[in-house]
């Protein structure tokens, strides 16, 4: 009888952020849907009440069904036979419950059968689902793909496919191939247009999460003779038409309930989504940004469960006549775990709100021309969302791995055995810093926001906010740390050496991340005293990290670069 939403007051704190009022008003177009749909909200309070109640349902299903199923799903895993992938029994039950509860297509407009939720409460559901079963979050979270269909599909495609997703059909994004992983420009899957104008797909995809889904978005080479990203288009493949088989599924370290498929396309009928040649450069980039936010949520869910498992064990396990949590060495680990969890969660929801703001304005722009202010606002939030997405994904996934490691450490020898959930959490966590772009690629996406000043400008807006007097000293400390960040950027830029900038990029992005998360926790603590402990712990850690990176950059002799780069 657990509820993973109501047992975690931090979630309600983030759901009730001041910016939500504006997001919801835009999203609901001033609540005009209420005339057409009996489940549409009447006003802001009603909408928030809907999110709250829906998250309670998510929390209940997660606490009572999905979390108890997680161990069985991990043991049984997905399987493959006769060209199809099969879910574990627990996964089948989980999906059924999510369908019955109507938790698919949450962010889709009502006219397609969706709930028209903003991204923020949807991402909160993902955070909760991931805590219950990280691998299941993938299957459920692939409803994200409907967002891409909604943004780039034509009206007919939207009407045919999106209602099916809202009814509970699953999706997949078929991008990776044996020779095209991080480098998607090398995709070779061949799309051929027949004389009647229809398309067929031929070739192989690999590492496709939920690859036997009902509706696939497929990246394929539509322009014969091309070799780069501009020859790629996006296609929709409907499983009902046949033509794609699962050759095998991967035997993975974690998220075993989520089948990772190798797909063979044999004259598989497909339809073009959007314009030719825009597949990678526009649609997949949008798809990936949504997916990265999803992995950031998944990572926070992992951090949450890792922290909870560690805390429960430390309170229960007795050594030397007392619970081990009473030893400072153990208590400190738990404090740092909680601080990383809270910091990455604050960043996650800040990012989700920014995504909400620019996406909703973008959507409105299809109905009416935006005002000049709205256009500026869209651009502003789009840029912030682009800056925070790789940071939330990159650092959030690294933190959840660290938390999973510490969770095992707190369990001691027992943590190394298969008897406790922590070993599964440790294995499940590992993929988060790899898929949808490794941490290293997140740094590549984020570094331009260091050099162009997006992060600094954001930090300045945080610094301009008033805080309670008791938080003033922390705020001053953050100002000093910001100066160190600015000096480090200047030192790197002074070299005017792209290779050197690449080499230092991770350090600069991490410094920016430490600062952004410190400020977000400061504002959280300003609004809600329960964040004060994590604020203090996180800022101490951030100060040490920023100082370490600043010192490394300050003392680094560029003549040493070959020692690192020439192998």
């Amino acid at each position: 009888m657990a509820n993973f939403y109501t047992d975690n007051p931090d979630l309600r704190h983030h759901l009730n952020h001041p910016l939500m009022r504006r997001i919801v008003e835009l999203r609901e177009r001033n609540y005009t849907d209420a005339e057409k749909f009996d489940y549409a909200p009447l006003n802001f309070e009603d909408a928030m009440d809907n999110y709250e109640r829906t998250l309670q349902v998510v929390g209940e299903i997660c606490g009572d069904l999905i979390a108890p199923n997680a161990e069985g799903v991990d043991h049984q895993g997905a399987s493959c036979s006769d060209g199809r992938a099969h879910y574990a029994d627990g996964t089948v039950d989980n999906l059924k419950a999510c369908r019955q509860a109507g938790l698919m297509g949450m962010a889709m407009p009502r006219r397609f059968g969706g709930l028209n939720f903003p991204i923020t409460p949807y991402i909160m559901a993902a955070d909760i689902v991931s805590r219950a079963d990280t691998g299941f979050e993938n299957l459920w979270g692939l409803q994200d793909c409907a967002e891409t269909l909604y943004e780039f599909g034509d009206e007919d495609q939207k009407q045919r496919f999106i209602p099916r997703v809202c009814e509970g059909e699953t999706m997949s994004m078929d991008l990776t191939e044996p020779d095209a992983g991080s480098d998607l420009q090398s995709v070779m899957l061949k799309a051929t247009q027949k004389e009647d104008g229809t398309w067929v797909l031929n070739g192989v995809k690999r590492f496709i999460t939920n690859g036997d889904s009902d509706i696939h978005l497929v990246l394929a080479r539509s322009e014969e003779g091309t070799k780069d990203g501009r020859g790629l288009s996006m296609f929709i493949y409907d499983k009902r038409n046949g033509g794609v088989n699962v050759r095998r599924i991967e035997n993975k370290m974690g998220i075993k309930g989520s089948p990772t498929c190798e797909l063979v396309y044999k004259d598989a009928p497909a339809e073009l989504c959007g314009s030719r040649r825009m597949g990678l450069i526009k649609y997949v980039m949008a798809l990936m940004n949504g997916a990265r936010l999803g992995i950031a949520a998944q990572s926070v869910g992992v951090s949450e469960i890792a922290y909870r498992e560690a805390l429960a064990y430390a309170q229960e396990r007795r050594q030397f006549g007392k619970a081990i949590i009473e030893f400072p060495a153990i208590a400190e680990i738990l404090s740092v775990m909680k601080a990383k969890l809270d910091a990455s969660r604050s960043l996650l929801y800040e990012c989700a709100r920014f995504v909400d703001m620019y996406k909703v304005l973008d959507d409105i722009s299809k109905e009416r021309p935006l005002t000049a202010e709205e256009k500026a606002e869209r651009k502003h939030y789009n840029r912030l969302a682009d800056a925070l997405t790789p940071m939330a994904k990159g650092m959030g996934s690294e933190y959840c791995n660290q938390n999973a490691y510490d969770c095992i450490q707190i369990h001691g020898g027992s943590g190394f055995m298969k008897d406790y959930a922590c070993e599964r959490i440790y294995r499940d966590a590992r993929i988060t810093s790899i898929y949808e772009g490794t941490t290293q690629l997140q740094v590549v996406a984020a570094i331009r926001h260091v050099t162009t000043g997006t992060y600094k400008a954001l930090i300045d807006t945080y610094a301009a906010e008033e805080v309670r007097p008791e938080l003033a000293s922390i705020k001053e400390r953050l100002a000093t740390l910001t100066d160190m960040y600015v000096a480090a950027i200047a030192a790197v830029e002074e070299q005017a050496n792209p290779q050197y900038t690449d080499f230092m990029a991770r350090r600069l992005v991490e410094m920016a991340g430490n600062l952004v998360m410190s400020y977000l926790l400061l504002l959280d603590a300003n609004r809600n005293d329960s964040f004060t402990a994590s604020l203090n712990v996180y800022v101490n850690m951030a100060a040490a990290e920023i100082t370490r990176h600043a010192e490394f950059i300050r003392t680094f002799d560029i003549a040493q670069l070959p020692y690192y780069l020439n192998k």
Partner: protein
Amino acid sequence: MSLNIIVLAKQVPDTRNVGKDAMKADGTINRAALPAIFNPEDLNALEQALRLKDAHPGSTITVLTMGLPKAAEVIREAIFRGADGGIVLTDRPLGGADTLATSYSLAQAIRKFGNYDIILGGRQAIDGDTAQVGPQIAEKLGLPQVTYAEEILGIEDGKVTVKRRLEHGLETVKAPLPCVVTVNGSAADCRPRNVKRLMKYKYAVSPSEKAALSEEQQKFVDERPYLQLREWGCADIDADPQQIGFPGSPTKVKTVENVVFTAKEARRLENNDEQIEELIKELITNHTIG
């Protein structure tokens, strides 16, 4: 064939997590200390009803509950999970009823409702644990009854096929409709609340709940018939005053005692077949097992 299904549900104190303050000094339940919930086995019954509705499109599920006016919460909860509507049977004279008076009152309500093919309910409620109300209703209405149902396998040719969970195994039986089926806790869990239904019906109220709303809110409910839950009192079910509430309840509680189970004796056996076999024989002889 579409069905008219009645589900009997009861709002009960959550006795599964009982703390020290669960009982008052006089031995009665301290309802204030225990959250009111949907009786768990009634949820199992609702799931069987929802499956019948899935299999027989066009069927309607009406939930009937007797209790305080706030028992309307149970109706809303059932609607969120897929029921079509419900009736709260509430009236001061109905209070203090034992199983006899309860089954009389519910049977009267069912007669009044009239059109039904099957009546489902949980095996028993977790506050009283009597398992009597379902069977008594069947007797009063002159209907066949199937108890301890674990799964309704189907309805065909006017007959329902039910798998029963018995102490030593399973039994599959058929009964002609209309009939009463009481569902065991071992049956499938109830499906979750559907969030669209939750958003649509969250403002559904019974007349006595509506009376407490603002004028504006009342107007909102008046404009939307689907938000209006039915509420019946004694007069609506033509109840005989002598058969309801306290007057209709022959059961009188004299005292309530706390029972603490303690082991009377302990015996130590050696780890060998001989001694274990001897113990088993002894336990069979004195009917502890077997």
